[in-house]
């Protein structure tokens, strides 16, 4: 076995020997539960909206059967929409929301949230720890001379990408039993409307979202590897990145966060009220390419601090 592959195995030893693997397991379970609970909430909201509209139709003496039999139309963009036949529209929204109780619908919904909101931050944090663990523990004194620079610099991003892929798969798999539990909990409220459920997303959409989630996690991880190599600081950098990522508005079309929304525009699945709209008209393929280039450049840059600075503290 080559030194490079041995270093990759060593990096996974770090993942499994320390708390990282357990934290990943807990994170995937929490994300799946979050997906099921937010899915259930969005279903109940959609049903409540439908029932309110139905009550208004009845109060006004309108023909409910005719309204439900004819399609709804929506005009305008996300900022201002004109909906005709709101009763049918609300019923359609219930139908779409109900797909979150299906295995593929649940997986697609939570993976879309993960790809946009959770995985970049998880990836960044993971990247920070991955770029600092052997330096801070002092194990680099043994590891670096064994691996050499190329194997060392290959092992970290490779382990990071594979770990993010494993996390995405774990979230997708765990979302299925969580959806079953959610279905059991809301069954009484949805039973009459379950016949109107829209077709669930196909499995290949789940696969696409797993890949997209892993990519967004890897992009965040690449930034984490770079920042961790430069600062060797953990808590402060993770806190700052999380705040900036979630709270600072998009600065423009070429904000890396906007690449995520564009890159997933064909695959992301938001059946509830949360439907983030990407800025500009970048398009999915250019956004995916930008995201890939951004990730690769960040990985390459993360090698620079390791090459040009001392790898151990100079005290003593």
């Amino acid at each position: 076995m080559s030194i490079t592959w041995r270093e990759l195995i060593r990096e996974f030893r770090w993942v499994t020997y320390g708390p990282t693997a357990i934290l990943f397991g807990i994170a995937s379970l929490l994300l799946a539960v979050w997906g099921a609970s937010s899915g259930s909430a969005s279903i109940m909201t959609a049903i409540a909206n439908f029932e309110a509209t139905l009550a208004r139709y009845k109060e006004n003496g309108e023909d409910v059967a005719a309204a439900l039999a004819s399609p709804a139309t929506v005009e305008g963009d996300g900022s201002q929409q004109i909906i005709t036949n709101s009763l049918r529209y609300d019923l359609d929204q219930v139908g779409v929301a109900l797909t979150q109780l299906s295995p593929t619908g649940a997986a697609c919904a939570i993976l879309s949230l993960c790809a946009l909101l959770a995985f970049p931050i998880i990836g960044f944090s993971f990247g920070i720890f991955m770029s600092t663990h052997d330096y801070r523990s002092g194990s680099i004194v043994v590891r670096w001379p064994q691996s050499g620079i190329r194997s060392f610099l290959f092992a970290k991003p490779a382990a990071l990408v594979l770990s993010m892929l494993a996390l995405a798969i774990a979230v997708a798999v765990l979302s299925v039993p969580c959806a079953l539990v959610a279905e059991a909990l809301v069954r009484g409220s949805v039973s009459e409307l379950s016949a109107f459920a829209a077709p669930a997303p196909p499995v290949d959409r789940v696969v696409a979202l797993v890949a997209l989630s892993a990519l967004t996690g890897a992009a965040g991880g690449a930034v984490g590897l770079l920042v961790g190599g430069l600062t060797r600081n953990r808590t402060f950098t993770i806190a700052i990145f999380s705040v900036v990522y979630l709270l600072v508005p998009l600065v423009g079309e070429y904000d890396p966060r906007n690449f995520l929304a564009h890159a997933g525009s064909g695959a992301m699945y938001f059946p509830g009220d949360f439907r983030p709209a990407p800025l500009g008209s970048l398009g999915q393929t250019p956004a995916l390419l930008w995201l890939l280039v951004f990730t690769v450049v960040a990985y390459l840059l993360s090698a620079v601090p390791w090459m040009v600075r001392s790898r151990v503290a100079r005290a003593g």
Partner: protein
Amino acid sequence: MVVELTRLLEVTGLRKSFGRIRVLELDFALEPGDFCLLLGENGVGKTTFFRCLLGLELFSGSIRIEGGPSTGLIHGVLDQPMMYPRWSVARNVRYLLNSSDALERPPIQSLIGKGLLRRRVGDLSTGQKKLVLLAIALASEAPVILLDEFANGLDQEARSRFRKAVQAELAAGRRGFVATGHDLAAFAELPTRVLVMKDGGVLDVTDQYNSGISIEEIYEHHLARTHQGI
């Protein structure tokens, strides 16, 4: 026919500076079966020399092992934390040796007891941690082993066991050791060569050592000359 002899470790033109201060400027060689003791005051550059050999510092010059690159062929035990304090000793051993059969290797079995393997590194004494690192160094496949202040924290029994293990390695003639330390009694009869580091270079005093002068006397003599500015 010309036969080119390659040395186990050959350091040529090694130069290291911190800012404008030149810390190291030396050539160095080591043969299989050598135990080279490096003497010198604090701050003279012994640990920096080891860090350069391990590739942990930037430097100019070349480091060759048996005529080739040194990657994977030098193992060092520095006088600093080198393990994950929250992991067990067994996990640290597997991680540092990067092998699933690491615990079955003879130096691990002879120097580290089973009870110690199960304990968290953070709960060990300084001496126990050092003994674990020394066992890992001997269990590695590296032909060159660097020992920085190896005896710090080790009790007499642990020193004796480790010296016996090193003597067995030296007798086998496959490996070379470079060691530093201020507790000179800990080295006992191990050194085959003695060098003194001064002004970034090395001075070979093996002849004095072989003539029967003790390491302590050699070092005291060197210190006296240094203080006289000679």
